[in-house]
């Protein structure tokens, strides 16, 4: 059996990893919900966040400035991505948009390689992140605690925005029925730009948290985040925002649980085991754990 202390620590780890995955899945799902497209260049937004943080660190900026700058860069990059690459293809098929997003991802990775470096670069993060705090007899890492807190706050604020604000209601309407939303007066371009802006915001926040764990960046940094985001949102049911959050936390918890319980020999394959479990779930419930039946997307 695990000790209560170990349990508490793993719980925070699960919540922390889960909230990163939830933010990423939500960012991917947001755009999928409104436009019906999977943006595989989403991972590059995390990379852009990381390089922006690195750039600011090299110019002597303190960590909070690096973090805010990184998030800001991801938002701008996401909006530009839509304007430059996807808007000209409005109304194109799912596959066309999918391949366009692969092209954007590939292009950005090559830009990073040529303009910066193909090698990993260290991103300085506060040493405070490595510390642990003691709560009673339980020791919990500072970074997982911050990550879980930031993630939860972001999710709550986003929920309030989607529920209360007029733009949030318009976005939810557009993701249920885009044509009818326009018929009642929702501006198509504005709601799509907003979806990409929020998607970028989520990628940026998740990116800062991700880089704080990995403390390094290279041109392919976005690969793992986009993969986890995709898996988590598929588990939750693509386009279902609540499902994306649930899928993210589920995936985070699953990975932490496997890391903690798998015998040493199998441990290197924890990720593979996690994927196997995901495949098994999707075999039984193709619409995802929380998704409704697959609805036709026009």
């Amino acid at each position, binding site marked *: 059996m695990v000790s209560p202390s170990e349990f508490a620590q793993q719980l925070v780890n699960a919540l922390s990893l889960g909230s990163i995955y939830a933010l990423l899945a939500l960012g991917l799902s947001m755009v999928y919900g409104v436009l019906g497209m999977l943006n595989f260049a989403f991972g590059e937004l995390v990379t852009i966040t990381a390089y922006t943080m690195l750039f600011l660190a090299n110019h002597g900026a303190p960590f909070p400035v690096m973090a805010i700058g990184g998030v800001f860069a991801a938002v701008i990059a996401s909006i530009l991505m839509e304007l430059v690459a996807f808007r000209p293809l409005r109304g194109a098929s799912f596959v066309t948009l999918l391949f366009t997003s692969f092209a954007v991802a590939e292009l950005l990775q090559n830009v990073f390689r040529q303009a910066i470096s193909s090698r990993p670069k260290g991103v300085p993060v506060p040493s405070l992140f490595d510390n642990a705090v003691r709560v009673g007899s339980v020791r919990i890492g500072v970074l997982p605690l911050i990550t879980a807190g930031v993630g939860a706050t972001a999710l709550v604020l986003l929920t309030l925005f989607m529920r209360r604000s*007029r733009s949030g*209601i*318009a976005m*939810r*309407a557009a993701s*249920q*029925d885009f*044509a*009818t*939303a*326009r*018929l*009642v*007066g*929702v*501006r*198509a371009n504005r709601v799509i730009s907003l979806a990409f802006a929020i998607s970028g915001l989520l990628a940026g926040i998740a990116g800062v948290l991700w880089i704080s764990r990995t403390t390094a960046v290279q041109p392919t940094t976005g690969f793992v985040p986009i993969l986890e985001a995709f898996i988590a949102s598929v588990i939750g049911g693509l386009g279902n925002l609540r499902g994306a959050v649930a899928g993210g936390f589920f995936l985070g918890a699953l990975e932490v649980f496997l890391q903690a319980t798998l015998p040493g020999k199998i441990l290197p394959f924890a990720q593979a085991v996690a994927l196997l479990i995901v495949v098994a779930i999707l075999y039984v419930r193709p619409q995802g754990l929380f998704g409704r039946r697959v609805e036709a997307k026009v």
Partner: protein
Amino acid sequence: MTGQPPRPLLSVDEITVAYGPVTALHGVSLQVSEGEIVAVLGPNGAGKTTLLRTLAGALRPRHGQIWLDGKRLDGIVPEEAVRRGIATVPEGRLVFPGLTVEENLQLGAISRRDRQAIRAEIDELFSMFPILGERRAQPAGTLSGGEQQQLSIGRALMARPRVMLLDEPSLGLAPIIVGQIFALLRDLRGRGATLLLVEQNVHKALEIADRAYVLSVGRVVTSGPARTLATGELERMYLGMSRAR
């Protein structure tokens, strides 16, 4: 209703609309004056829905013009048409099932800026449709068909339209509910609304309409005051249906 109003509020001038190589409307013209209920009748495939979709900005006419109160309306996008004063109650109601009743109504006013007035109007609508008031926090998808139709009409009203387009508001509803919906439309006209109504239920439509146009295979085959059309042979000739039971 004697004498010709000075200028129609909505004027459709010889529009031709095509889906790719298939022409759905051939030079259709019609006028709607302020405060009128105008019905567009005709069998399936006559082009009625195409006409409404074109007026709402969802389709672009190949030829011809659409004028709303002296301004060109053809060629604009749907969200702009709403801002010019065209609100649609689409076929099949198309409320947003995952949004609450109240959010559906808020969305209807998305083109407006006057938040205070919007609040007051939503409350007004809830007293007009008490059942919607009771269910304001419920997802619209849980409402019955008739309630969804009320909501769809309420959502269109929230845009404060100059002209409301209604596509088959009786479709799929029980006869008693259809009666209620038509009573509501008559009531709206009493409050000064201007309605353009597409209907399969010819008998009901001619009961509340001032004038009607009959479409067949994309052309206006006849038009005139509803009373005249109701007593004529038109129903059998052009609509191929017996009188409503």
